[in-house]
């Protein structure tokens, strides 16, 4: 039953980071065979949904140091500054490379690439392709990747485990969705590029596929997950659907208004209400502070009651039809389609929504994890350039810079390794048997997937949201552990092999439960407030104790164990985060 194939480097995930890595390998070492293994066709990957833009220093009055400072202060000093320095230096080069590959960047009238302002950035440096930047980047990368013969795609294959032997990752086991066949894909190096895990929460901008698969794969193989307590809420999601309204809407001059039509951010130490957008101020403050201001405003009873909970209003009307159509066409399309609202004449109801994981698989500057042969890049990884709060428009250049670095490093590593050992196949056979026993041939089973998933999402939202406490997190950790137990009694209606999406949902749920537990655990142990991690019982930042990355390891009993690693400080000593002045 088992199929076997072999490559030099296997990439898990075919979004922005995965495709950039695949191309980097092909260019660095054209003789290496590369496999892109993805549970969806690469152009369906969630990079496609990124809207606002990609930051990289471009204008004469900007500097790499300014971009680094914005990123580090935005991350509340939890970023590794050596990583940030690499990132800001290579971001413009990577973005220009995409220009050479045909990305349809928006332009100035004279033909030069245009840039726009973005939240938490003191200079204008965000490259954009209208407000479908991620979509255009992903399709440019995917289409460009088609010209490299050394890249083999495994479209619609779901990776269920990593093959580890002799302390080295040497491939993956994957389910081919169309047939249900289990396949061992051996490799000298594996790069995880599977993105984040926003689906752990109920209300999220993240697509259905964002279930933390890569984080769970790495964690189970012994790699630590870093800074998992830091979850980004984007301040402006549409109610009910959680569809993202890009930060670019505020960068172009949009206002956030409470129920009285008042620009309430001025009450939260974010600056004064000027008619035109001011950088690092008010609506252009960082996402964590804006989402926290929403909760405070709600507590004061000044938000608007909506059918799906409280909202505030995003007002773009004063920008005029021309700016909205030219710079924010997708925002208008989404509002018209999903809210029956035209932002040219009406305000948009918005509320904070889970958007991005600052944490992820711990890597060095080249995407290498502590487990030999295993690399990670993009949202699944934590280098860390995002610290305690990522700045808008830093994630797209991150997946280019670190996707390329991980690709090159994995290629160099793979070139020196011997072919994987034959006895790895025993592990693949074990995995095939596990899938049969635990799911397809299991008798009985009482717990519906949807029920467990709903409960997990509710727990995370109630206990590990914008504001948390020791008590709420301890409750979450306990309940999540209970869900893990109940998962063993999972019920499947579908026991077939062919395109069994229910089996995939079950496997995804097991990843999410595992990842959710690590989030609750390290959030509980970080008894301070920093960036996106706000503890009501410990409201202050505590550099003495927590200027450190949390590192969560999986114990042999399958429980999370949290340790800490130092933050790398190069030139920007910890200081107060100042916005609006």
């Amino acid at each position, binding site marked *: 039953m088992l199929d076997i194939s072999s490559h030099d480097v296997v990439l898990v995930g075919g979004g922005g980071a995965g495709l950039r890595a695949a191309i980097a390998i092909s260019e660095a070492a054209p003789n290496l065979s590369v496999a892109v293994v993805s549970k969806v066709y690469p152009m369906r990957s969630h990079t496609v949904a990124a809207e606002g833009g990609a930051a990289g220093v471009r204008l004469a009055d900007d500097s790499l140091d300014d971009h680094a400072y914005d990123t580090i202060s935005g991350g509340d000093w939890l970023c590794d500054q050596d990583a940030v320095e690499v990132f800001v230096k290579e971001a413009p080069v990577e973005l220009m490379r995409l220009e050479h590959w045909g990305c349809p960047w928006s332009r100035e009238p004279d033909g030069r690439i245009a840039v726009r302002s973005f939240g938490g950035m003191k200079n204008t440096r965000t490259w954009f392709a209208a407000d479908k930047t991620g979509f*255009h980047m992903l399709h440019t990368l995917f289409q460009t990747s088609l010209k490299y013969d050394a890249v083999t795609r495994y479209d619609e294959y779901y990776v269920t485990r990593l093959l580890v032997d002799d302390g080295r990752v040497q491939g993956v086991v994957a389910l081919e969705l169309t047939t249900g066949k289990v396949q061992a894909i051996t490799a000298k190096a594996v790069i995880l590029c599977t993105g984040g895990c926003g689906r752990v929460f109920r209300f999220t901008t993240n697509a259905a596929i964002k279930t933390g698969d890569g984080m769970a794969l790495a964690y189970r193989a012994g790699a630590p997950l870093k800074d998992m307590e830091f979850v980004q809420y984007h301040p402006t999601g549409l109610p009910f659907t959680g569809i993202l309204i890009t930060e670019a809407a505020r960068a172009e001059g949009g206002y956030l208004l409470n129920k009285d039509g008042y620009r309430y951010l001025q009450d939260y130490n974010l600056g004064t209400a000027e008619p035109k957008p001011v950088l690092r101020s008010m609506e252009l403050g960082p996402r964590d502070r804006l989402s926290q201001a929403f909760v405070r405003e709600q507590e004061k009873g000044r938000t608007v009651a909506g059918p799906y909970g409280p909202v505030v209003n995003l007002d773009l009307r004063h920008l005029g039809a021309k700016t909205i159509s030219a710079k924010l066409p997708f925002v208008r399309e989404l509002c018209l389609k999903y809210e029956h609202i035209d932002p040219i004449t009406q305000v948009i109801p918005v509320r904070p929504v889970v958007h991005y994981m600052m944490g992820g698989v711990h890597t060095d500057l080249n995407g290498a994890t502590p487990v030999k042969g295993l690399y990670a890049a993009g949202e699944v990884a934590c280098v860390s350039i995002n610290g305690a709060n990522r700045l808008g428009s830093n994630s797209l250049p991150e997946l280019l810079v670190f996707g390329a670095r991980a690709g090159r490093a994995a290629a160099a590593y793979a070139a020196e390794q011997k072919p994987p050992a034959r006895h790895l196949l025993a592990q693949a056979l074990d995995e095939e048997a596990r899938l049969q026993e635990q799911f397809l041939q299991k008798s009985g089973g009482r717990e*519906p997937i949807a029920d467990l998933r709903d409960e997990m999402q509710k727990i995370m939202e109630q206990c590990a949201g914008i504001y948390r406490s020791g008590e709420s997190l301890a409750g979450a950790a306990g309940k999540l552990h209970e869900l893990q137990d109940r998962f063993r009694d999972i019920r499947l209606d579908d026991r077939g092999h062919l*395109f069994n999406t229910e089996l995939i949902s079950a496997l995804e749920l097991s990843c999410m439960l595992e990842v959710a537990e690590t989030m609750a655990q390290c959030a509980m142990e970080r008894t301070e407030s920093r960036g996106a991690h706000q503890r009501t019982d410990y409201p202050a930042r505590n550099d003495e104790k927590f200027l450190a990355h949390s590192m969560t390891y999986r114990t042999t009993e399958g429980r999370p164990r949290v340790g800490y690693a130092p933050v790398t400080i190069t030139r920007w000593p910890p200081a107060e985060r100042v916005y609006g002045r």
Partner: protein
Amino acid sequence: MANRITLEVTRYHPAHDEKPRLEAYEVPLRKEWVVLDALNYIKDHLDGSLSFRWSCRMGVCGSCGMTVNGVPKLTCATFLSDYAPGPVRVEPMKNFPVLRDLIVDTSDFLLKLAKSKPWIIRKVEKPLDEEYFQTPTQLDAYKQFSMCINCMLCYAACQVYGLDPLFSGPAAIALAQRYNLDSRDQGAGERLDILSHHEGIWGCTFVGECTKVCPNNVDPAGAIQQYKLTATMEWVKSFVLPRGAK
């Protein structure tokens, strides 16, 4: 508005069904629900074995194309209430082999896309610290065709593709044209060889159904007509210019 609606959904599993059949499910009718939400309700609460693809639920990933009451649609952008009081028939996209339930095999498109060389082709490359200038007008020349999300609705609507699976099809041609019209590209001649013979653009009879169903106003029918012109020009050039010149 009634508070329930019936969906008639294609069920098909090649291991135990000789041919596809319709199964009726009653689901809540909520005004903010799209057809995809109703399918997820069925999967979560009525029958976990129903299979379909979806991901972003915001009309940009292109996963959830199906046939809704006979018309190719993205189910995440098609509101259930527009079909009240129902029933709503949800079937797989036409013109593709059905793998199971609402899932079709679109791998043929991926092969055709690769053949149309959808990447920048240039004779000489600038160094990475230099950009290729492109005015907004030059960007507008191809921008519309770059909006294709590969959702395959145009193939499901294409009568030519339905009759002749060798036809490259609307999206692959629109994407070839997207690069041909890009001021940074010099590859139109190379793409010509692949697209201009029988299975290429000459098969299209300009029925225009592809453009009607496109959720992003890409206008593949327009691309095909433009491409016929480009192809003719390149063909004429091949007589008057030495080989390889542009």
